[in-house]
């Protein structure tokens, strides 16, 4: 059987990402953060990105801290019980990056419009301050008497999106063992879709569990395989988030100098993802895969 050619190296996949592009990031908080792609982008030295992250944590935070970003949409960027997103927080408070403030309806309506080739989506006006601080992102819509107040949100069509699933086949069908959040909607809205997976499985394995295929191959331009590629975030059913590493990341992010040292030791000076896995250590990675036994 001939290969679809969609499974490519990290470097080959990232060759499409250029300075100044709009980059969508899938997942949800500590789940499905496409970290191997994020680390690859930092090694590549891409700059001036506009980010459109689904509610996330370390993926947008690391790109912002590493200086790859000039503007980011913010629906929700948080380290939950580990605190506020440290580099995002510092960059916004110092004025280093611009924030396009968004909410759930804004990104949902914008992505849907993008996926449907409509100029904008219609969402309810919920009485918030969002239109005040992001007037281009929330425009008052014309309504008829008796309608509730509505807003127009412009279509979101990222140049590239980064997603993370658990496994894919040679065709590029991407399977999820847990929730897939906004990932399919992002793939539908984007011009180019790069999916990171922890492993490649035979087509027969995908067919046995077709309900797990959340991103069918027609929506996928490239698949990058990198075991533990979502570390220090979680990969549903395969490994848990690395709480100790995330806490150490937050601590290292207390100022730019200490964060730069983290990026040097964990991203720039590692020989790609192999070097990153060596840096984290087999024992740590094994424990994260150990389920109840790993705790």
């Amino acid at each position: 059987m001939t290969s679809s050619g969609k499974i490519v190296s990290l470097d080959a996949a990232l060759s499409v990402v250029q300075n100044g592009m709009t980059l969508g990031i899938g997942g949800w908080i500590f789940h499905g953060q496409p970290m191997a792609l994020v680390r690859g982008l930092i090694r590549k030295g891409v700059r001036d990105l506009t980010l459109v992250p689904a509610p996330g944590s370390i993926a947008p935070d690391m790109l912002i801290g590493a200086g790859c970003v000039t503007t980011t949409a913010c629906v929700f960027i948080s380290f939950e019980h580990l605190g506020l997103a440290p580099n995002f927080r510092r960059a916004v408070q110092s004025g280093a990056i611009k924030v396009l403030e968004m909410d759930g309806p804004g990104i949902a309506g914008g992505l849907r419009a993008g996926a449907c080739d409509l100029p904008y989506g219609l969402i309810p006006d919920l009485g918030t301050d969002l239109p005040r601080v992001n007037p281009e992102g929330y425009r008052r819509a014309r309504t008829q008497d008796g309608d509730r107040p509505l807003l127009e949100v412009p279509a979101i069509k990222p140049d590239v999106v980064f997603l993370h699933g658990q496994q894919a086949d040679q065709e590029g069908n991407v399977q999820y063992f847990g929730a897939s959040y906004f990932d399919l909607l992002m793939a539908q809205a984007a011009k180019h879709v790069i999916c990171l997976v922890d492993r490649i499985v035979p087509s027969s394995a995908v067919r046995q569990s077709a309900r797990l295929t959340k991103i069918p191959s027609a929506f996928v331009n490239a698949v990058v395989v990198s075991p533990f590629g979502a570390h220090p975030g979680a990969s549903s059913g395969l490994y848990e988030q690395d709480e100790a590493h995330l806490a150490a990341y937050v601590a290292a992010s207390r100022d730019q100098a200490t964060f730069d040292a983290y990026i040097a030791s964990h991203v720039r000076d590692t020989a790609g993802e192999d070097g990153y896995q060596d840096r984290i250590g087999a024992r740590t990675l094994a424990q994260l895969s150990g389920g109840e036994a790993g705790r």
Partner: protein
Amino acid sequence: MPIATSDAAMGEMLAVLLARDMADGERAIVGTNSDIQVAACNLARQRHAPHLWWVSGPGGMTNASEGIIRPAADAENIAVAEAVMDLPQMIDFIDWQVHFFDFAILGALQTDRFGNINTVCIGDHARPKLRGPGTVGISALCGLSHRFYIMMTRHDRSAFVPKVDFVCGAGFLDGGTSRTDRGLPEGGPKLVVTPLGVFDFEPANKAMRVKSLHDGVTLDEVRDNTGFDLLVPETLQHTVPPTAEELFTLRRLVDSTGVLARKFPWPTSRHAANSKGVR
């Protein structure tokens, strides 16, 4: 693990207070970082509201229950759920539909006299003193649910301010009829639960009002820790502490590994007072 009937931890107390107000057959939603919310819903289902329906906002799992509190987005919930929905379908009833949810339970960096919610920033948005995580579904849940609860794990003047610096979830806006005048559906905050007490909103002017104080808490202490004048009813009520049966059910059937006690202890200044009252 022995089931102690001694003191309730703060997280357990908040879960019990929220669960008591939920009714059978209601529809609810919880977010990602929602241990207390999940516990409250499952406690209500175990006691008086067996047909309460709740869904994990991001993960799509409904009525996930196995006696262990897990993060609501985790895949482990799938095996103990009744259904698993995909977010791109769920957004129809989360972000657009009016009154699909009976209630949501929301935390905040700041809340104010009229129960508006801020999780975006402290200070000016363009150059904030503190940048918060953002709005996510809070705007829609505050705007579109029949009612919502505000759950604060701290009660001080930085959290209870006269007017929030950024409205990302509309409470009663400027009070009175301003919420519905603005075109929002009927709704708004019903109760605020904190380590110090339970608060509601005066029906006409919609200003926050003391409903009950937890044992050992004085009105002066609440006033000292609230950045605006609370309405105070003529007779002050005491919060009914969690009963032995409520705590037994919570610890045996809902949170059997003690997540709430571990993650949400009382603030140290309050512990002495509360440990007297909730046996």
